[in-house]
């Protein structure tokens, strides 16, 4: 809950140090990738995506070997990157309508650049002259200048907080929820959207997922949940699924709705 306020923010593991292999200090797979990209010590526009993919996969392997608990996001990303790597290494086949590995790499690079830009902007923002720290308001206000339209004030946040707290109090909350094995349908859905929802390329996600989910009892739930979630997303037009024959690899890619959502967003 209090993750909004920093305590020991800079205690991030250094993935280069063999002894410290832990993802707990990272804000998800993209953050880890960005951190690894920085170790290439070149501009993000000039990093080798292939080398980056390699670094990530090595890192995840090391973590798995030490049997450290690792969030599903990291494994899904590993699966996707392993796929990307195969695309980058195999020349594009003639008549292949799929996006090339280079295009997939470009999208990854774009996402890394965008995240890095937001980090930079966040840093510039906190270093501005801030009210109450560098710049001050009148310390001895003489009167309350108010808009005469309303005597009472409340913010939408106040309203929603009051409502949520009240409804929560009244609801019977003694329902116990069993600890999930790995993935709920919702988790699978969220992760799929976040990782492949907007990818235009056919991705054989399940194959790579199997590779990266170690425990056999987890495989069943991961595959079942991600398959069920992908069907749901297909129905909503956010995802497309392709299978060339019975028991053949299942490919996924972003559907037409996934694109439209993004376009409307930034008109």
């Amino acid at each position: 809950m209090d993750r909004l306020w920093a305590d020991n923010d800079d205690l991030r593991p250094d993935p280069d140090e063999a002894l410290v292999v832990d993802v707990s200090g990272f804000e998800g797979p993209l953050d880890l990738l960005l951190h690894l990209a920085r170790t290439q010590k070149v501009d993000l526009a000039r990093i080798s995506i292939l080398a980056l993919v390699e670094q990530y996969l090595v890192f995840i392997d090391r973590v798995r070997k030490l049997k450290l608990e690792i969030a599903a996001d990291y494994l899904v990303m590993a699966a996707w990157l392993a796929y990307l790597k195969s695309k980058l290494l195999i020349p594009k086949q003639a008549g292949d309508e799929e996006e090339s590995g280079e295009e997939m790499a470009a999208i990854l690079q774009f996402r890394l650049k965008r995240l890095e830009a937001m980090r930079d902007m966040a840093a510039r923002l906190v270093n501005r002259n801030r009210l109450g720290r560098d710049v001050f308001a009148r310390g001895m206000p003489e009167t309350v200048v108010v808009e005469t339209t309303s005597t009472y004030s409340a913010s939408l946040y106040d309203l929603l907080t009051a409502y949520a707290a009240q409804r929560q109090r009244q609801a019977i909350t003694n329902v116990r929820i069993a600890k999930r094995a790995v993935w709920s349908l919702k988790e699978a859905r969220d992760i799929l959207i976040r990782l492949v929802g907007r990818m235009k390329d056919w991705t054989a996600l399940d194959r790579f997922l199997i590779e990266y989910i170690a425990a056999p009892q987890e495989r069943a739930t991961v595959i079942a949940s991600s398959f069920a979630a992908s069907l749901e997303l297909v129905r909503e037009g956010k995802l497309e699924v392709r299978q060339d024959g019975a028991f053949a690899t299942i490919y996924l890619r972003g559907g037409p709705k996934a694109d439209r959502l993004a376009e409307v967003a930034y008109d």
Partner: protein
Amino acid sequence: MIDGGNAAMSFVDDDDPGGPEPFDNPAARLHLAETVRMAEAIVFASAEPVSEKALAARLPQGSNVRVVMTELQRVYEKRGVNLVRIGDAWAFRTAGDLAFLMNRDAVQQKKLSRAGLEVLAIAAYHQPVTRAEIEEIRGVETSKGTLDLLMETGWIRMRGRRRTPGRPVTYGTTDAFLDHFGLAEIRDLPGMDELKGAGLLSTRMPSNFQVPTPMADPGLLADDEDELTDIDLEELGLLTPKGGDD
């Protein structure tokens, strides 16, 4: 009243509100000076920004609030206290260059966590933005309570809903955010134009985004290529992760 104000703005040069045009008349000039004094007293008395609407209600009828405030801003430009605009409200704040003098007494403020700061920056630069978009940009689920606490701090707010299927709630920043970070408006966020130009404020990769060349290091890649050409694609997918062991 504010509309009237904007219309009258055309007579006045922003950089030189004391120019000849509107103040030719000594009586008009005196009148403006008196209105400026009144605005000064009202805004100075308040610790919170005073909206132009509230000012218009208290200044003599027919006052052009924007002209008055621009003049007052000019008067305070080089002083130890400056008049700043926050959205469509005005406030006096100590001058930024005197921060060294002021912040030694500042109450130690809680520091935003990295996650909190990132969500705040994304909400500011990408607004209106949905939670799913924030998560897409960060590549990670937003922990429960990050948005909640940012809303409690009064820096971000729910703005409305995106007019798309599912009508997701959108987030954006508040005037308190502008006030806290010393911004007159969202357009003044640092680096806004560069980010826009680079296409980094879009949810999808823009078509003009420079497609990088992962083969920037051709030597390394060529070696790998030779080694692996014989290997079947399916096998490769399964074997790849183990390649990292050696």
